[in-house]
Every structure is written in structure tokens, then in C-alpha cells.
């Protein structure tokens, strides 16, 4: 509900109090939106000059002070897709179980408790876990696979949450109609419920993909390295990644000043990648909302 202000202009002290507070509310919203645009605009202005075709498609040269960031782009895409390859099937299956089969009981409460707490685990703790479990115990070493799995378990709660939301929006009449026509429960879920929830599930998964692509702390000790001479050829290779590349270029090494344009360029590429995915998801979702309204 919104208050239509033009019709409710108040006079006197109560009116003044209200207009001061409403101005503050409006100001707070404006500051947050401005902050978003300030960051994006700053990166675009500073980074645009560094971006050209060679920057996006060449290998780095001269101990990272020149050349392109192709291995970082490929590494980040591989890590994010690998994370999704684990988190998508597991997350969607969990959401189906929680929403369609069991909605009450001790077992479900435990699963939900685990998911809530998993969502709250700090990203650096995921990194520690990945180092101790995937790299050391499973002997995967610092590799694309370790990094992707670490990012995957981190995106799991996001995908479960989004899929559950999507499944909840499927009207119960769909399920009743399908069951009423003689379909079994599994047939109902697989042919009626999941297809109608699929756009919502995909939206959530794109958002999770974007988040995984931008994360740094979980891959710092598990998958990403500052430099590899070659592009990854197997899942057991170390990879370079955009977020880690920005971090190292900006904080370590002897050429922090010289590589500034590269840092801005890399940051701009990462922003474009992540925001591009998010815009896709937002557009898909708003289309869906409009369709459902009719």
C-alpha cells in the first residue's frame, strides 16, 4: 500500500514532521541507488580505455603488466558453470523434496536448519573447508574442480531458496488437475509442476551463477592462482579467475601503480559479466510476473 501524498498534504506541525521524515526516507533510497551508479560509473570511466579486443582475447604478458585477461575470463566462466553443475541438480531436487513430498516433520526441520545455517557460513570459511576437504582429503589439489565444488556448496542455499519460491507459485489446482486425471505423484511433479516452475528456477540459478562468478574468498585457496601459462585443459588444472586477479593486482606485487589500467579493466569486465547475468534474470522475472498477472 502506498500513501498518495499529493492528495494528503498536511498543514501544521504534524505535516512538517511528516515531510521531514518522508524526505529522509526518500534520501536514504536515493543514496543507495546513487552508490550503485557511482561504483558502476567510476569503473566504466576508469576502465573503458583499457578494454579492447586484445585485452579480452589475449594471454597476459610480461609478468602480468601487459596483455590480456583471457585466461581469467575463461577460468571464471568455468568455475561458475562447474559450481552450477553441482548446485543446480542438488538444489532443485532438494527444493522439490521439501516443497512437494515432505513439508512437515523433524527430518524436514533438520534439512531446513542445515540450509539456513549453510546460507550464513562466511565465504572465507567455505574456502577453509574446500582447502581441508576437497584439496587435501579428496586429494584434488588446487584445481578447477576443488574451486567449483567449493563455490557449488556455497550457491546451494541460494538455488534451493529460489527453486522453492518458484515451486510455491505453481497453483495447487495444477497438481489437483493432474492427479485427478490419473497421473501419479512423480508424473505430476515431473510433467506439470516443474515445467511451470522452470522459468523461476532458471532465474534463481542465473542469479546464483552471477554470485558464484564474483566470489573471491572461497576460491583463493582452492582453485585460483595468480598466474598459469596455459588455459585450463582438464578439471584438475589450476585456473586464473577475474575476482582473484583484481585482488592480487591491486594489493600485491611491485607494479600496483603501473597495472592500474589493467585493474580497472578487469573490474569492469567482472562487473559487466555479473550485472549482465543479473539483468537477464531480472528481465526474465519481470516478464514472468506480467504473464502471471494476466
Amino acid at each position, binding site marked *: 500500500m502506498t500513501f498518495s501524498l499529493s492528495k494528503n498534504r498536511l498543514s501544521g506541525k504534524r505535516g512538517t514532521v511528516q515531510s521531514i521524515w518522508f524526505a529522509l526516507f526518500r534520501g536514504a533510497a536515493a543514496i543507495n541507488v546513487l552508490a550503485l551508479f557511482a561504483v558502476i560509473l567510476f569503473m566504466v570511466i576508469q576502465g573503458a580505455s583499457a578494454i579492447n579486443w586484445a585485452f579480452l582475447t589475449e594471454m597476459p604478458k610480461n609478468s602480468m603488466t601487459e596483455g590480456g585477461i583471457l585466461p581469467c575470463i575463461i577460468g571464471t566462466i568455468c568455475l561458475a558453470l562447474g559450481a552450477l553443475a553441482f548446485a543446480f541438480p542438488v538444489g532443485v531436487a532438494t527444493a522439490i523434496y521439501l516443497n512437494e513430498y515432505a513439508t512437515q516433520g523433524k527430518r524436514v526441520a533438520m534439512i531446513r536448519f542445515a540450509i539456513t545455517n549453510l546460507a*550464513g557460513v562466511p565465504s572465507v570459511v567455505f574456502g577453509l573447508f574446500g582447502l581441508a576437504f576437497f584439496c587435501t582429503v579428496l586429494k584434488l589439489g588446487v584445481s578447477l574442480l576443488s574451486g567449483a565444488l567449493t563455490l557449488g556448496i556455497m550457491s546451494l542455499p541460494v538455488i534451493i531458496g529460489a527453486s522453492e519460491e518458484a515451486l510455491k507459485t505453481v497453483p495447487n489446482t495444477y497438481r489437483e488437475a493432474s492427479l485427478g486425471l490419473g497421473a*501419479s505423484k512423480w508424473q505430476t511433479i515431473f510433467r506439470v509442476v516443474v515445467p511451470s516452475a522452470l522459468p523461476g528456477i532458471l532465474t534463481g540459478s542465473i542469479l546464483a551463477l552471477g554470485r558464484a562468478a564474483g566470489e573471491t574468498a572461497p576460491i583463493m585457496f582452492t582453485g585460483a592462482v595468480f598466474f598459469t601459462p596455459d588455459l585450463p585443459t582438464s578439471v584438475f588444472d589450476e585456473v586464473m579467475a577475474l575476482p582473484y586477479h583484481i585482488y592480487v593486482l591491486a594489493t600485491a606485487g611491485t607494479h600496483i601503480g603501473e597495472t592500474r589500467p589493467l585493474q580497472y579493466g578487469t573490474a569492469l569486465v567482472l562487473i559487466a559479466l555479473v550485472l549482465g547475468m543479473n539483468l537477464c534474470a531480472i528481465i526474465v522475472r519481470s516478464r514472468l510476473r506480467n504473464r502471471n498477472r494476466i
Partner: protein
Amino acid sequence: MTYREHTKGEMIPEGSSRGDRGAAPTDTLTGRGTALGEWVAESSLLIISLISIVVLGLILLFLLMEGLPTFSFVSVKAFILGHLWYPTDEPPDFGILALIMGSISVTLISSLIAVPSGVMTAIYLSEIAPPKMAEILKPAIELLASLPSVVIGFFGMVAVAPLMQRIFDIPTGLNLFTASIMLAFMSIPTICTISEDALRSVPVTYREASMALGATPFETISKVTVPAALSGITTAIILGMSRAIGETMVVLMVAGGAAIIPGSLFDPIRPMPASIASEMGEAPFRGDHYHALFATGITLFLFTILFNILAMSASRRFRLKG
């Protein structure tokens, strides 16, 4: 639709379904095979769902396994209350009080910025903004949430820190205050979206009743809507703080990195996640330093679990009220 058309229409699917039955017998519930299939489907979904519990269990197990050996060379009390963190000195000092105080101070100060700003934005979006405006602003807040933390950290380093240095005339812009500001922008989207959901779930009748009694829109917001959504807003604030204390890249790049207990707003600090992230690369594998960093990870994890439990109990109260 007339009755005759109805019966006509019905005849076609009946014929075709009979044909289907012959072609694909597994598609019906009559066979024993399908009942088995149903059972297999449900149990495999259950097994997959248990992965979340297993993963959380494994995280706890491995943190403890790699972290607890710390207490063979330093007592729990000395670890938590020790002022000195010199893990690479000879002999090393493993006291994380400065790191804990760094984390707590940066979380509290960032909340002082993020809570009013996030909640006020939520009030604007749910109560005041025209629907068209809200439709534009909400995705903007979500995009703010999706900015990678390393980009926010980088922005803080190259844009905000030099600005702070000039404005306040201090030796370095990388300090508690700058880190708090940048961290606030990471937790504002969390606080804002959850608060907004809480505000929107307050029944419209509450607002109508208040307005009908002669309250102004602002009085309705401050005395009816916000109090009714207070538990939800509390949950939002706690989850926002939980996000802030666990956030790594921003504090790693902007906080300055000195392991001292902050005495002023412009002291450089070294919160727990920053210490773990920056030192793990150099710590010898399964050496004392390595174990001490895992123990720091346990401490950090305990903080976030505490926040989560608080948030869960707040939201349970909220559900009863709503």
C-alpha cells in the same frame, strides 16, 4: 459450452488415452513397476536433500579437525584473550583478541550506517514510493547486492580511501571507518529486502484503521506499520550484521590490516576474515599457523551461527504475530 460439445470433446481424449495405455504401460498407476518408481523417486530426492545436512556437518567436522590442534600449543584463553597476533615471529604469538575486536568494531560501525539507511529505504519502497518508482528502485537495490565484494573492496581502495585521507587529513585512508562504510553497502541490500518483505506482510487493514482514526501517513508508518513488522525488521538487521561480520574481500582490501585493538575511528584494523584470507596462502601446511587460522575460522563461524540463531528466534516471533 453446450452439453453435446462437451461429450463430443470428451470422446477424443478417451480414445487416445486408451491408445497410450497400450503404447506405454508404465505411464499408469496400475503396474507394480510404477509404485516402485514412485518409491525410488521419493527416496532419491530425500537422499539428495540430505546433502545439505552432510555438507554442513562436514564443514563443522573439518573446521574442528584442522582447528582444534591449535589448542595443543596455545590455551583457549590465551588464544581468545591474547592481544598479540604475530604468527610468523619466533616464538610466535597466537592471540586473536585484536582480530575479534576488529571484526566486532567494523560490524557495529557498519551497522550504524546500514541499519537506518536500509530500513528507511525499505519503508520508502513499501510505504511511500509510487508503484512505478518501486519497480525501478527494487532491481537497483538487488543489483547493489550482486556487485562482487572484490569490486566494492577495490572501489573502496582506489576511490573512497584517498578521499577519506584528504577530507580527514589522516595518514592512511585504509582504516576502520572506510571499511565500515564499504561494508555497510554490502549489508544494506540484505537489510532492505528482508525489511521490505516484513513491511509488506503487514495487513493493509492495519494501515486503513490507523488512517481512519485520523493518523497521518507518517504516524501510521511509525506507530502502526513499523511496530507490526518489527520482528521481521529485527531479523533483517541481524542477518545484515551476520553478512557484514563474515564478509572477507572488503575488509581484506580496505581495513588497513594492522592487528591492533582499534582505539579510534581512523585506526587500521585486521578483522578475522581478512587475517584468514591473507595469511592462509603463506602458512605452512598443517603447521601451527595453519591450525591457528582454522581456529580463527571456527571463532568466526561461531559468531555467524550466533547471529543465525538470534535471527531465527526473531523470525519465529514474527510468524506468530503475523
